[in-house]
């Protein structure tokens, strides 16, 4: 900044003939410098994921799809592993009363899916599992999810089953938090979307903050090139994908939100 100070001293009124052009140039350079200094660094990309060309966060070890049977909003049993076998499956635990994280995730995924080629979309299943079965009745959950995409699968179950499914993923089961007011209570739940590839494993998760551009970048890759897309790739099932530095500790528990803030 020293050079700018001296430049401004030389150009200030009364210190001789100032040149607006020179001052304009100096101001432009100073502002450009300021903007660079002001700009936050790019979000820390996950190196392991970035090395593979993904923008999500690589899990230290792949996580198996929960072996659970939940219930659809039409009351039918839904065997998660069986019904999503061979599909890229985006699994998220949330609740319809969630004010921020859940609707933002669902909206962003839905928007990106709408723009992907039909044949790729057919190979993606989005599964939303409620962590608030008490309020998320089928009559409430289905219309809520339809606002984003009617193809999204909405699942519910009893609390024990839901908790077991979350534990299988390595995350703490959602807990109820009293917040008062009209909403009554919020649910503290994991904020990341698990992306299961065709090998039935989640190698990458997408925390809250994942942008539409990130989904648009990664989803076609997960469909076309993701683990399990080729026999060679699927043979790695059950092992750390590339032995690179783990990015998420503790099995990718990631951020836990209460639905009250970011």
């Amino acid at each position, binding site marked *: 900044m020293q050079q700018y100070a001296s430049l401004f001293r030389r*150009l*200030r*009124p*009364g210190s001789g003939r*100032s040149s*607006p*052009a020179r*001052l*304009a*140039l100096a*101001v*432009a350079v100073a*502002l*450009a410098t*300021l*903007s660079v200094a*002001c*700009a*936050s660094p*790019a979000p820390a990309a996950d190196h392991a994921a970035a090395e593979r060309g993904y923008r999500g966060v690589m899990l230290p070890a792949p996580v198996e799809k929960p072996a659970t049977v939940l219930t659809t909003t039409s009351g039918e049993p839904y065997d998660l592993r069986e019904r999503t076998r061979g599909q890229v499956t985006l699994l998220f635990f949330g609740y319809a009363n969630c*004010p*921020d994280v859940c*609707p*933002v995730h669902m*909206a*962003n995924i839905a*928007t990106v899916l709408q*723009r992907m080629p039909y044949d790729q979309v057919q190979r993606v299943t989005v599964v939303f599992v409620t962590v608030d079965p008490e309020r998320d009745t089928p009559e409430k959950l289905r219309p809520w999810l339809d606002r984003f995409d009617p193809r999204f699968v909405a699942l519910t179950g009893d609390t024990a089953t839901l908790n077991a499914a979350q534990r299988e993923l390595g995350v703490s089961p959602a807990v109820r938090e009293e917040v*008062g*007011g009209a909403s009554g209570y919020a649910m503290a739940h994991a904020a990341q979307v698990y992306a299961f590839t065709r090998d039935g494993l989640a190698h990458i998760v997408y925390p*809250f*903050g994942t*942008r*539409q*551009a990130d989904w*648009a970048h990664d989803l076609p890759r997960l469909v076309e090139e993701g683990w399990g897309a080729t026999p060679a790739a699927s043979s790695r099932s059950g092992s750390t994908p590339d032995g690179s530095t783990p990015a998420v500790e503790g099995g990718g528990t990631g951020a836990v939100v209460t639905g*009250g*803030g*970011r």
Partner: protein
Amino acid sequence: MNAVQWWCSARGVSWEWKWQPYPGVWLFVAVLAGIYWWLARRGGEPEEGRESRAMHSGRAVAAVLGIVSLWLTLDWPVGTMGAGYLAGVHAIQFVMLAMVVPPLLLLGIRPAALERLAAHRGWLGFVRLVTTPLLAMVLFTAAMVITHVPRVVDRLMASQPGSFVLDMAWLLSGLVFWWPLMVRVPRRARFVPPLRMVYLFFGTLAHVFIAMWLLLSPFPVYATYELAPPFPFPGLDPLIDQQVAGGVMLLVGSPLVLVAISIIFFRWLGTGEERPRTGPGTSSTGSTPTSAAAIGGGASAG
């Protein structure tokens, strides 16, 4: 639940139609109104031959409109929505703070205040330098571009001081940009109407490109709005909201510029203003007792 904020910023909480106080906004607007009131008191009644009573009233109306517009733009609900929920409302704030409020505030300055400014060599020198058209144009353009860079916006909007800086950047750069067009202190004899039109056109060109960029981007560019708790307005997803923002900048901002250019053009045609007065004697250094003028200079009392 909602702690009092002094300035609107993105908070990441769900929108609710519940009034919130912003003491910083009130203080800022009150100080500005106080300054105008003080200047008006010191200016006294309009004198015969100096400025007509109608012009005098017009300036008062412009000042009041400018201050009220500023207040409405910064306070709840517009300020709150624009800071953390809707890019479209943020764009309205931009148009107001950079394109509407500054000319109104400048038009509302009394001639007597400008005469006092002209008599103060230090202030006059500063104003002359900062409002040199080339520099003013660079400042305004730079402010526009920098305050629309996604990383800068997302970072600034997340805090009250940052949000304040963003709003002030628009307002102050707008005042600097509009000053040479609206105020004749210091007098710039060579800044003739054709140059003023060119100045307006090129000075506001950046916002056309920014608007087009917002309109044509395939994804939301600002995390602040993309990841904000959804605003309860059916069908308004972040991308549509961003396109609304681009549309506001293009369809509201650009016509304002065209109107301003038209005023300059027709005043120039109608009065022949500036042309007979470009002799060496008019290249004033500011000591000429002159006053504010509307765009195009038709209202100059100097």
